[in-house]
C-alpha cells in the first residue's frame, strides 16, 4: 500500500515536470508546478503512515504515525502557495506587456 502512494506521487511529480516542459500556456506551467508539489507532499505523508498507527495527537492509543514528515509537509504547502502566488503576479504583469500568456512568447531573451 505504501508502494501505491509512492507510485502515485512519482507519477504526479513526473506529470508536473512534463507539463512544465511542454505546455505553452503560462497557467499550465503553474499547474505543472502545483502537481510536482502535490507529488512531493503525497510522498512525505504516505511515507509517514505506519500500519496501525493513530494520528499524532496525544494521548495516543497504541502507536502513532511519524509526525515529522507532517510538519515538513505543512511547511512545504505554505511555501508552495507563496511561490504560486508570486507566479501569478508575474503572469499578470507580463500579460499586460505581451498581451499573451504564451510562454513561447516569453522567450525574447536568448543567446
Amino acid at each position: 500500500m505504501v508502494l501505491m502512494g509512492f507510485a502515485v506521487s512519482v507519477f504526479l511529480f513526473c506529470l508536473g515536470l512534463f507539463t512544465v516542459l511542454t505546455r505553452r500556456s503560462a497557467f499550465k506551467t503553474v499547474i505543472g508546478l502545483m502537481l510536482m508539489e502535490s507529488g512531493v507532499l503525497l510522498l512525505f505523508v504516505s511515507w509517514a503512515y505506519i500500519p496501525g498507527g493513530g494520528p499524532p495527537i496525544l494521548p495516543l492509543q497504541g502507536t502513532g504515525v511519524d509526525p515529522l514528515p507532517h510538519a515538513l509537509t505543512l511547511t512545504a504547502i505554505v511555501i508552495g502557495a507563496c511561490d504560486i502566488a508570486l507566479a501569478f503576479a508575474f503572469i499578470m504583469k507580463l500579460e499586460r506587456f505581451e498581451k499573451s500568456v504564451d510562454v513561447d512568447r516569453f522567450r525574447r531573451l536568448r543567446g
Partner: protein
Amino acid sequence: MLTASGGSGVSAMWVLSSILIPMTAAFVLQVLDYSAPERMGRWIALSAAAACAASLGAAAVSWTGMETLRLGGWSPGLGIVLAADRMSAIFLVISAVGGAASARIALFPFSKEQRRFSGLFFILWASLNGILTTGDLFNLYVFFEILAVCAYVLAGAAMTREALEAGFKYLVLGTVGALFLLMGVGLLYMGTGTLNLALLSRAAGAMAPGALGAAAACIVTGLGLKIGMFPFHFWLPDAHSSASTGVSMILSGVVVKASFYALLRIVFLLFPSVPDRFSVPDALLVLGVLSLVTGHLSALGQFDVKRMLAWSTVAHMGYLLIGAGCASPLGIAGALLHALNHGTGKMGLFLGAGSYASLAGNRDWRTFGSLGSRFPLETAAYALLAGSVAGIPPLAGFWSKWMIICAAAEKGAWIAALAAGAGTVLSCLYYVPFFYSLYGHSEADTDTSGPGTPFPSGMLLTVLGASAVLFALLYLVPGLRDQFLSAGSLIKDPEIYRQSVRAPIAP
C-alpha cells in the same frame, strides 16, 4: 528531564545574529516606514551596517573553529542546529562584503518606492547567512526558498519587459529546482530517519544504493538549477543581466556562491567520492567543464555588457565545480578562493558596467567610447577586476585558477585542466575588445552625459579593484594559503563536522 542544554556561549550568538539581524531589520523597517518615513534612509544604513558587522562577526568566530548552536535548546537529533565552520566563514565574508556593497548601490539614495524593496533585500541577506550556517537539511530547503522568493522579485523588480520575463523564467526553474531539492531531502529522511547534516553524514552510507543514488540525482539537479550548472544554466544570464545594478551584484556575486556552498557541503558530507567508481564529484567535474565551455563561448558574442558578464558567471561556476569535482584539498581550497575572488571581482564588474551604461545611456559596450579616457582611475580599477576574473597572472583570480588547474592535473583530469586554462584565453577574447572600445576606438560615440558628470560609485569600484590585487596575497603568503588548504581538507574529510554532534537525541 528535558533535553535542553541552552545556547552554547556568546560566540555562537554571532552566528545566530547574522541571520536574525537582517531578518528583523526587514520586519521592523516595514513598521517604521509608517511611523518615521523621513528617517528611513538612516535606518536602512544602520541596518545594513549591523547586518554586515554580524556577518563578519560570525565569520570571525567560525574561522577559528567549529561553532554550533542548538536552537531552542534541542539536541541535534530533535531540533535544528546551526553549525558554521571555516568554509562557512569564507562564504560569510563574501556575504558580508557583497551584501554591504550591493546594499550601497541598490538601496541608496533611498526613495519612497524602495521601502518594500529594501525589506526584500534584507530578507535575502538573512537567508544567505542562513544557508551558510544551518546544520539541518530541511532548514536549508526553507532558507533556499526564502532566498529564491526574494531573488525572483528583486530580479523582476526593474519592471521592464525583459526583467519580468527573466523573473518569471527564474521563478519557474527555481521552483522546479526547489521541488527536486525537497524530493531529495525526503528520500534522505526516509533512508536515514534524520535531517541533521552531521547525523545524515554518518547514516547515509547505510542507505540502500538505489535510494541514495536517486537522492543524489535529485539534490544535484535541484542545486544545479540554482547555481546555473550546465544543462540548467539558461535562466541565469537573463536574470542576472536584466536586474538593476545593485541586484545583479548580489545575484552574481553572492547568491550563486551560497548555492554552491550548499552543494559543496552536501556532496562531501553525504555523497563523497569513491575511488575507482563514477561518483557524484566526478559528475560535478564533467558538468563543470561543460558549464565553463558554454559560458565562455556564449559570452564571446555578447555586446550587452551585463549579459556578457552574466555568461561569464556561468563559466566561473564551472571553475568552482571543477575545483569541487577534483575532490582534493587543493581543488576545494582553489574553489573557495576562487569563489571569494570571483565574488568581489564580478560585483565590481557589474557595478562598473552599470555606471558605464548609465553614462552612455545604454548597455551596448560598442557605444562606450571615450569613457575610458575620461575616467582613467576608475577604468584602471575596472581593468584590474576584469584581469583578475579572467585570470591574468599577478592578479588574485589567476592564483585561485592556478590552484584549480593544479588540482585537476593532479587528479589526471587533463581535459578539465586544459579547459580551465583555455578559459583565460577565451575571457581575454571578450574583455580585450571591450577595453579597446572603452578607450575611444568605438564605432559610435553616444556619450549622453554632460562633461562634468562624475563616475557613479567610483569610490566603491576603486576599492573593489584594489581587492583584486590584494587578494593575491591570500595565495602568495604561505600562512594564509595553508589556512585555505586546511579548510579544503576539512571539507574533503568532514570528520570534525560529523563529530560536532555528540548526543543525537539524549541530553
